[in-house]
């Protein structure tokens, strides 16, 4: 087991840790920092097993780091099933492994307050798509609220240390976390509102209004928010695809995004020697970020015969000496309670493993970067129809070019409407925000201009070879939307 350390010096990031706080974990005293989550503080102090799986009793550990996978559930101050990766540590907290099932104490001491809100536009998710929607709709005069379940707003952007491509209007040349900061500043300037640590959990249709139930974490309990809204924009992003292989459950096998959160948001080194699976942009970028955090990257493997991401990203890694092994896949992870090695194997044209080409790698970290899938479960509750579009990464809510789903007044934008990238996520958000203003009669002239400009920028971007496929997927989606709508009539 390698020693896990905090990152004190980083070429790009300056980690501003809050005051140190002490809490109890399984009766032991653990020190963490204010503004970091329980799971981060535990990981940084060497605790890697967060629980056991119900069926097979496998060890489970850090995984997604953003509240999506439930791998980190623990009992906190007596309350079971707390997602410790998105729950900030506080002085004196009592944290316990909860056994396989979370059992509620007889008299749970959970304070729940209730509050009602009514807004013109409710945005779920504060990534680039949500922030841009919010900036646009607020500027056009609509009362807007953004909610996000993570403690820090900005979605994927806050974990990206690399400078983004694009053009100036979409903040090209800034690093991801700087883009988030700039957009939040923009939102603040125009008077837009956002709430963090607030999860949208349920949808209702009541009194001719869309209604969302959201749970907001508070210092001493929870606040149940009932948010009525005329328009909803779901910008909830994507979740990472997983890969089946023996012992993939071991702590030490992580999603790329989860590791970015640990390493780039909280400044904790995820391990010492890494294997990365997947040579798309995410895999290539995380490889570079690992090197920046002082982690050795033993290899990056990819089953395809060529790198999937941009050559400039691959080149950055290659010239620093990271072997990029194409036509390779992972055969298994090694270890009992934690990864202490991996076996990789060559594959043939049909991606079938070639016996006898196995190679063992001495690693304590296996990063899975094999793609993303839109994550918009909440839209199914609202009855939005979905379709499978290979070009957009799988199941997506059917939407038209204004980003409106099959339900009146419910919109979707960004990765949640099909996996793409940040510039197009922003443009889609801008379109959704403007389309709503236009419909509601808020500065409709300006709104139409903004929307049309965004359309033309979007179609320009989608002519590039990496985004052509997205254009094709969106075309199919629009076609389907038309069919559904003509059917309704």
């Amino acid at each position: 087991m390698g020693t896990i350390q905090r990152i004190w010096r980083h070429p790009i990031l300056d980690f501003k840790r809050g005051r140190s706080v002490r809490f109890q974990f399984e009766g032991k005293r653990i020190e963490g920092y204010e503004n970091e989550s329980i799971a981060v503080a535990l990981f940084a102090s060497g605790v890697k097993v967060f629980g056991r799986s119900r069926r097979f009793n496998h060890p489970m550990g850090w995984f997604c780091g953003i509240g999506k996978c439930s791998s980190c559930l623990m009992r906190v101050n007596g309350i079971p099933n707390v997602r410790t990766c998105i729950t900030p540590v506080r002085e004196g907290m009592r944290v316990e492994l909860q056994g396989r099932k979370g059992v509620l104490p007889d008299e749970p001491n959970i304070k729940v307050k209730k509050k009602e809100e009514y807004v013109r536009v409710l945005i779920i998710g504060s990534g680039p798509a949500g922030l841009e929607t919010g900036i646009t709709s607020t500027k056009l005069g609509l009362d807007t609220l953004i909610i996000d379940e993570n403690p820090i707003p900005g979605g994927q952007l806050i974990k990206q240390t690399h400078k983004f491509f694009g053009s100036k209007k979409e903040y090209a040349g800034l690093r991801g976390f700087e883009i988030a900061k700039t957009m939040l500043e923009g939102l603040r300037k125009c008077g837009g509102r956002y709430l963090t640590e607030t999860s949208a959990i349920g949808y209702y249709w009541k009194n001719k209004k869309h209604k969302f139930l959201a749970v907001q974490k508070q210092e001493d309990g929870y606040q149940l928010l009932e948010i009525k809204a005329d328009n909803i924009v779901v910008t909830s992003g994507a979740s990472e695809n997983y890969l089946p292989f023996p012992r993939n459950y071991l702590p030490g096998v992580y999603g790329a995004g989860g590791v970015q959160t640990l390493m780039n948001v909280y400044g904790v080194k995820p391990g010492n020697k890494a294997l990365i699976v997947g040579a798309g942009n995410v895999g290539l970028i995380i490889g570079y970020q690992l090197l920046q955090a002082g982690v050795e990257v033993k290899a990056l493997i990819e089953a395809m015969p060529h790198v999937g991401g941009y050559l400039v990203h691959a080149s950055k890694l290659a010239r620093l000496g990271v072997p990029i092994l194409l036509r390779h896949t992972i055969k298994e992870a090694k270890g009992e309670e934690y990864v202490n090695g991996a076996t990789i194997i060559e594959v043939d044209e049909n991606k079938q493993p070639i016996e006898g080409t196995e190679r063992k790698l001495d690693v304590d970290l296996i990063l899975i970067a094999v793609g993303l899938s839109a994550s918009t479960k909440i839209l199914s509750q609202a009855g939005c129809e979905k379709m499978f579009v290979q070009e957009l990464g799988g199941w997506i809510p059917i939407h038209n070019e204004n980003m409106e789903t099959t339900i009146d007044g419910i919109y979707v934008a960004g990765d949640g409407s099909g996996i793409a990238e940040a510039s197009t996520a922003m443009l889609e958000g801008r379109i959704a925000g403007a389309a709503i203003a236009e419909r509601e009669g808020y500065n409709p002239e300006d709104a139409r201009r903004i929307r049309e400009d965004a359309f033309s920028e979007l179609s320009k971007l989608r002519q590039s070879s990496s985004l052509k496929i997205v254009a094709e997927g969106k075309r199919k989606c629009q076609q389907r939307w038309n069919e559904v709508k003509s059917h309704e009539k």
Partner: protein
Amino acid sequence: MKNEPREIGYLTYDVLKEKIGLPSKERLAKGPVAIIECTEDIPCDPCVEACKLGAISKESLITPPTIDYEKCTGCTLCVDVCPGLAIFVINVNYKEEKALVSIPYEMLPVPERREKVDTLDRSGKKIGEGEIIKVRRGKRETFVVSVAVDKNLATEARSIKIQKEENE
């Protein structure tokens, strides 16, 4: 095709020569010049704006950049701006036997002037040793490191590796 960049993960000199056209011998002899190793249609353009002399242009946002070697003075301002870290400046005229290669650098530790470092090619293979001549803190924490290398390595040396210190 052999050495198809996407099948190895990096560009080679031959592919570069064919795809972007390298400066002529005469131009190289005149001094520092930027080599833009960005050959795909990435929707991206900060390089265009970075060059105040107008040496870099793009037909549209999604075509690869082109450079006018006659306008470029090798000032390195575009090196630390490019998000792809794909621009290098080479000066084959630096010294009798040495060329100077300027490389974008975002790792720790940052080398110091006069430090001896390993020089690596595009595949990460060590091809020689070089001496750090200049370290400039560029935009947004990207450093531009200029390293003196053997003249014949000017078109190959694209990365540096800090030599392990004894006291580590």
